[in-house]
């Protein structure tokens, strides 16, 4: 058997589970309930302030979550990449460990924790839950790039007269950009589309865009739901295009994506 034939099962898998569903989404998004071609779904989204607001709100929450993850995650990744930790991977594993637990279970546990501490559920809880869930996705790619960084470069910068602040600003930070970009994408993309965390941590009081999509599909409004999904897909697609360019320009792999 020729080697290229081995790829047939995978191609079939991709066709059935990725390509056809995508085409279906596009088809549903551009048709009405009778199956006639229309743009009314998109018009409805544009005209409907509630959906639009949810969309903008979701992006806002995603941006805040990503920024918080970056601010918390970068120092953590930096500390982990230092020599004294390189030998024992324990700390890294501890950071990654929560990812082994299902996201719903983790979130339910967070709800229980908030209840126990008598803290109100709502926006604060939502951002806390998102950061808690997605922080490892920020730490790991940054840790990866920092850890692979040539120690000589840092010494070279010191040698040329850079104090610790300058070493960080002029060498370490620019060289860890690929990891930062990877981390941002890996946190931003799932936070835009998540709905389970929002439902559980806000007692369904705050709607995210993912929730809107889910509700519409759940209520049988497949065409409108598909249109909303498509908008979200486009947004994420544009994001990853931007990062791909960034990556090839940097020509420095090391991130996860």
């Amino acid at each position, binding site marked *: 058997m020729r080697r290229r034939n081995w790829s047939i099962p995978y191609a079939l898998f991709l066709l059935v589970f990725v390509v056809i569903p995508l085409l279906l989404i596009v088809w549903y998004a551009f048709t009405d309930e009778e199956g006639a071609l229309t743009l009314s779904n998109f018009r409805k989204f544009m005209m409907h302030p509630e959906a639009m607001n949810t969309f903008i709100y979701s992006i806002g929450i995603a941006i805040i979550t990503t920024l918080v993850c970056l601010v918390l995650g970068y120092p953590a990744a930096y500390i982990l990449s230092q020599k004294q930790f390189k030998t024992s991977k324990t700390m890294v594993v501890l950071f990654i460990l929560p990812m082994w637990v299902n996201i719903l279970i983790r979130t339910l546990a967070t709800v229980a924790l908030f209840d126990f501490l008598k803290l109100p559920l709502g926006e604060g809880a939502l951002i806390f839950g998102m950061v808690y869930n997605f922080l490892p996705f920020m730490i790991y790619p940054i840790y990866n790039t920092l850890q692979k960084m040539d120690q000589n470069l840092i010494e070279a910068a010191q040698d040329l*007269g850079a104090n610790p602040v300058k070493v960080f600003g*002029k060498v370490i930070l620019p060289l860890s950009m690929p990891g930062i970009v990877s981390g941002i994408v890996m946190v931003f993309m799932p936070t835009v589309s998540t709905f389970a965390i929002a439902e559980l941590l806000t007692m369904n009081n705050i709607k995210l865009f993912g929730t809107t999509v889910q509700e519409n599909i759940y209520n049988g409004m497949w065409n409108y739901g598909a249109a909303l999904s498509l908008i979200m897909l486009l947004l994420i697609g544009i994001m990853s295009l931007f990062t791909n360019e960034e990556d090839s320009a940097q020509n420095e792999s090391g991130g996860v994506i």
Partner: protein
Amino acid sequence: MQQSNYIIEVQHVSKRFGEKVALDDIHLNVKKGEFVTILGPSGCGKTTLLRLIAGFQTASEGTIKIAGEEITQTPPHMRPVNTVFQKYALFPHLNVYDNIAFGLKLKKTPQQVIEKKVKAALKMVGMTDYEDRDVDSLSGGQQQRVAIARAIVNEPEVLLLDEPLAALDLKMRKDMQMELKEMHQKLGITFVYVTHDQEEALTLSDTIVVMSEGKIQQIGTPMDIYNEPINSFVADFIGESNILNGTMVKDKLVHFAGHEFECVDKGFGEDMPVDVVIRPEDIYIFDPSDAAQLTGVVTSCIFKGVHFEMLVQTQEGYELMVQDYHSFEAGREVGLLVKPFDIHVMKKERTCNTFEGKMLDNTHVEFLGCSFECIAQEGLEAGDKVQVEVDFQHVNLQDNEEDGVLSGDVKFILYKGNHYHLTVFTDWDEDIYVDTNDVWDDGDRVGISIAPEHIRLNKL
């Protein structure tokens, strides 16, 4: 005080990494404008010494002064030195211009001055018009030139070079050596150069510092080091050499390889055991005649480009390496002659192994962390402290480390014409020296044992 003559003063400097001693009480003074090379095999501490001067590591003990100022604890960014790294360490996110301008920008130099200086530095390393190139698009040699430009553009008092040419191919290395030498003359700054390549050291330096095992073995001009090596390690490391055991019969007369030879050395005393070093190019080789001091048979003859390298087995059983422009093919009988001036006599560092030990009982003595059987001797009782002496040839090495009383690693091998002189690093951090006819390799794990009758004990 003559202090101001020295740009770098390293005093009593030691560096330990945990238990391991990387540098042991180093003294080194470097004159302003000198080209100093620190030469030694890998792991001898030469790079550590350079990193202490650069400030990437701090000394466990001792002081380092640069230009009269103590900088032992000063962080690297505040030292008046710049480093050229072995693997270039160019910043991949910056182009050639920004790499070179890195240090100047940090010093807030005006833009026009930076531009002028970067251009001058690029010209100095022969890389004019490469400003906008991505550093990854440059070849190894070009990257190293940029790295040198990046260092010299800051006009440091001292330029430190950590095996800068090690990653380049031979031809490129030779070219760069010449360029470095020219650069040193033009710039007039002090170069401290680390290498394990003795030829590079001889070519480039004003002064060579030979290091081994964290200690400085010899400091001198290339000529001094080559012609008057202070011990057998230096003789063996620098250039090719024949090193033989000999005896200084009296002033200007030395006995080795079964004959007495006239030499120019004196002051060793009478009948003193010595090491004799003869460079292979200093031995005359010709058809057997009355002029011959030694006769022997050529066992191998290899063409080396400029000369032939021959091994001659003498009648007395010694093997000598000879280099000559004429070839004497294997199997031919030849005569050999050495002029008195070319025989270098060195004091032996030691003539037998000596250890401090303790009597365990009548027939057992403890030294090197182990108990050895010995012959009972009057006047020695359990608990007595003794000095233990063992001749080099009476230490037995075994392939199987279980067979020995203790084990160790072979770490330095010296061929002495008719036997090997090994340094074995035991598991108790002490060296034991062994003469043997067996062939061992550097790094071999061996078992060590000593027969009871060869352990000499003296009460302390």
